[in-house]
């Protein structure tokens, strides 16, 4: 049978029979479409894919996928996903989470998932607001943001999710935006190809409670001025005519005019750099995002997979002989026989 080779999926194959229930205009729709398109393109079998989520608007995602799914509780998706990945390393496990779910209540699980490097892909739908609970500030909301729970302005500095993931030893870190479907699909593909934990921040517009939070990256002109598309092995340039660039110095990353410093002075992006410092410096270029903002893959390095390491320990312990015997084990602790 050459059936599997000729098997072709369409986007529709990944749509479940559930009505999609986000607000009209919500960025979640676009990301859903990108995901379904991506899965059809890469040709993954439905039964091999599991979507795990927490609680939030974004966390309804699994219901709309025709794959396996687990709509968990608030903040705990990374733990549930880790269990699934441990139980069955053959699955493709995706975590869908929001800025509140991942970075407020679930922050600890996220950073541990990154350092452990199980093969789970975390998609953080960052709308910089709590959507489901109708509009409180989140840990990525800007300082001073007025919301239901902060009528005179949110306090504290928001997290920069990319910086946080890099500080937590993540092996794959990327950023994309709902509106840009080809870019989203490309980032999903890269995350999928990465053997290990992946952290993907997706800027997602909540048109009801935080409309236009990412306008600086979506408006026609703004977009040209502000999007820095990271490309491996290329100097970091951007702007309508690629006339601006990024240099890395002792005080971090800096925006320059290419004409002034020359192309050679620009930072050449290296996704695979073992040291995350350059990626971290790039992540500091914008916070919010405001002004020029790097998009794409910040970091993609190889590190042994938790599941593989564990499997290796088990195999080593069994010395290739398969599971030992419980009786034998108990007897080794010291037994005596009464006749």
């Amino acid at each position, binding site marked *: 049978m050459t059936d599997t080779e000729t098997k072709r999926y369409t986007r529709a194959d990944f749509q479940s029979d559930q009505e999609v229930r986000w607000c009209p205009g919500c960025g979640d729709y676009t990301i859903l479409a990108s995901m379904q398109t991506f899965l059809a393109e890469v040709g993954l079998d439905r*039964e091999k894919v599991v979507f795990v989520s927490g609680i939030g608007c974004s966390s309804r995602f699994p*219901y709309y996928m025709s794959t396996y799914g687990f709509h968990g*509780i608030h903040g705990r998706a990374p733990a549930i996903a880790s*269990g699934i990945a441990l139980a069955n390393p053959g699955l493709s496990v995706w975590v869908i989470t929001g800025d509140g779910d991942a970075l407020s209540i679930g922050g600890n699980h996220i950073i541990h998932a990154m350092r452990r490097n199980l093969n789970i892909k975390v998609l953080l739908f960052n709308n910089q607001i709590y959507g489901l609970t109708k509009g409180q500030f989140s840990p990525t909301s800007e300082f001073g943001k007025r919301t239901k729970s902060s009528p005179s302005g949110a306090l504290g500095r928001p997290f920069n999710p990319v910086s946080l993931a890099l500080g937590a030893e993540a092996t794959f870190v990327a950023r994309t935006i709902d509106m840009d479907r080809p870019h989203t699909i490309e980032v999903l593909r890269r995350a999928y190809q990465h053997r290990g934990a992946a952290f993907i921040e997706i800027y997602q517009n909540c048109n009801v409670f935080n409309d236009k939070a990412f306008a600086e990256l979506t408006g026609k002109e703004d977009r040209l001025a502000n999007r820095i598309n990271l490309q491996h092995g290329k100097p970091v340039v951007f702007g309508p005519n690629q006339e601006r660039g990024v240099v890395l110095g002792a005080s971090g990353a800096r925006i320059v005019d290419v004409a002034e410093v020359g192309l050679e002075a620009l930072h050449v992006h290296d996704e695979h750099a073992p040291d995350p410092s350059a990626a971290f410096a790039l992540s500091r270029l914008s916070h919010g995002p405001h002004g020029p903002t790097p998009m794409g893959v910040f970091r993609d390095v190889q590190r042994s997979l938790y599941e593989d390491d564990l499997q290796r320990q088990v195999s080593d312990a069994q010395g290739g002989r398969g*599971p030992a015997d419980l009786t034998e084990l*108990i007897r080794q602790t010291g037994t005596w026989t009464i006749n």
Partner: protein
Amino acid sequence: MPDETPTLEQESVDHVRIRFAGDSGDGMQLAGARFTDASAIFGNDLATLPSYPAEIRAPAGTIAGVSSFQVHIADSDILTPGDNPDVLVAMNPAALRANLADLAPAGTIVVNRDAFDERNLERAGYTTNPLRDGSLRGYTVIEVPMEEMTREAVKDTGITGRGVLRSKNFFALGLMIWMFSRPLEPTLEWIKATFAKDEAVMRANEAALRAGYNFGLNTEQFRHTYQVRPAKLKPGVHANVTGNQTVAWGLVAAAQAARLPLLYSSYPITPASDILHELSRYQRLGVRTFQAEDEIAAIGVALGASFGGNLGVTGTSGPGLALKSETMSLAVMTELPLLIIDVQRGGPSTGLPTKTEQADLLMALYGRHGEAPLPVLAIASPGDAFGTMIEAARIALKYMTPVIVLSDGYIANSAEPWLLPNLDALPDISVPFVTGPNSDGKFMPYLRDAQTLARGWAVPGTPGLEHRVGGLEKEDVTGAVSYTPANHEKMVLLRERKIAGIADDIPAVVVDADEGADLLVVGWGSTYPAISAGVRQARGRGAKVARAHLRHLNPFPRNLGEVLRRYRQVLVPELNRGHLARLLRAEFLVDAIGMSKVQGMPFKTFEIEEKIVEMTRP
């Protein structure tokens, strides 16, 4: 040189209780455990009670730093480590002071005389030396210069400096081995195997052990040795086991019996950590363990593993169980099999982390938001843990439900001889995964088995059964999200009935009856030995009393109400403020009377005995 032995009487006794006590650094747990093993191999029945200070090391020589290990050996079946030791080995003044009150009248005290200097006396809070001030009159006191003798014994073994005195626990052990006529060989072998990597230490310990033994042999201080003959244990292979060990073994056996891979996901916490440690050493049996970042993650991983088709298990103690509450509720809603072990300790809050208590029962039953019923089982003793774990797994799998198993600090750490079951004859508790459509060519994730009300278990990777589970209310049969009022009520009732129905699938409660008794003593968990022994003693004094012990706390066995109503009085001894009593009262409207002890320690046999005698006095 046995021929030089002064003639001694060898007194035969049917049981003896010995307590090794010393500073935390003195190795008393090790001495006690070795003595226990030697006795087990010799064929005695036995029970032990280790006791050590809270986790932090207390300053040497103080009462707070005392660590002890009591072992009860007997020639017939016994149940408890015994209330009062017959022999107390005291390695320093603090150990003497902390344990003297427990010593049986006219008991024997073996002291390490060298430790009774001014500094240690003061640290222990003595103003005069008890060895000199006559306060020990009435006891047999044997003073042994253990440090001096140990120093002498190890001098050619290559051990130097601080290491020298480390062996003194082996000296004390050797002395006890001699005194109670145990064979030396098993301990010598154990030393060889354990310290193989450090020859100096091995030799020092061996020398100290022999020195202690010989000291007994050669000293006139000892008027006689004792002999406790082997007990008539059931024939078969026995192991001396602690509860944490048998929980671990029970889990391995349960996974085998269920034909499922075992994933144990946990966060360390006293007194549950040893389950994690044990299981972590079983990779060659295919066991995988996962040390999570906290208890919430631990149960999340276990639940994810269950969704993925493993036997997902998590274990913790009270504070951790509290943290797992929200996820347990999710497990109830998603109807996935999951085992949650709670090794109870003294509370509330951090409480008494190294002490035992039974005060998590009501939390196990009710500590979840919304109507979230789940089965609760309790372990009665180290030996009972093995079977309880298999039973818990059976229920979890057959009924697709999380199950809580309650153990406690006493069960976790005390040891008893245990007859190995035939592991090749484990029951088959496996439940087949769903592999194809179950309803008109479609897969309905919440379609239930008509009898058990369990839904089907379809694991990711199975083509055609793609479905979603989650914490929102589920529509009957389809499992789709549903906010319909009638469906919600239906599902609440279905979940309730499913758990309640398990009562038909568990053994009826068996009463240890007594002709003419109108008092029933009902227990659960680790009070088993004390209650059984107390009942036995009370009967010996003429009391008419019946006894029942519950393994299943939710649901209760079907006949429980009927059993309770047979007796005019129902007494429920618990290491809490009346949890089970409260449940029985609410469920059966019987006037169950609680007998409560919350001291971080098990009941003593006589406490139960006296209470029964008092209640049955005509």
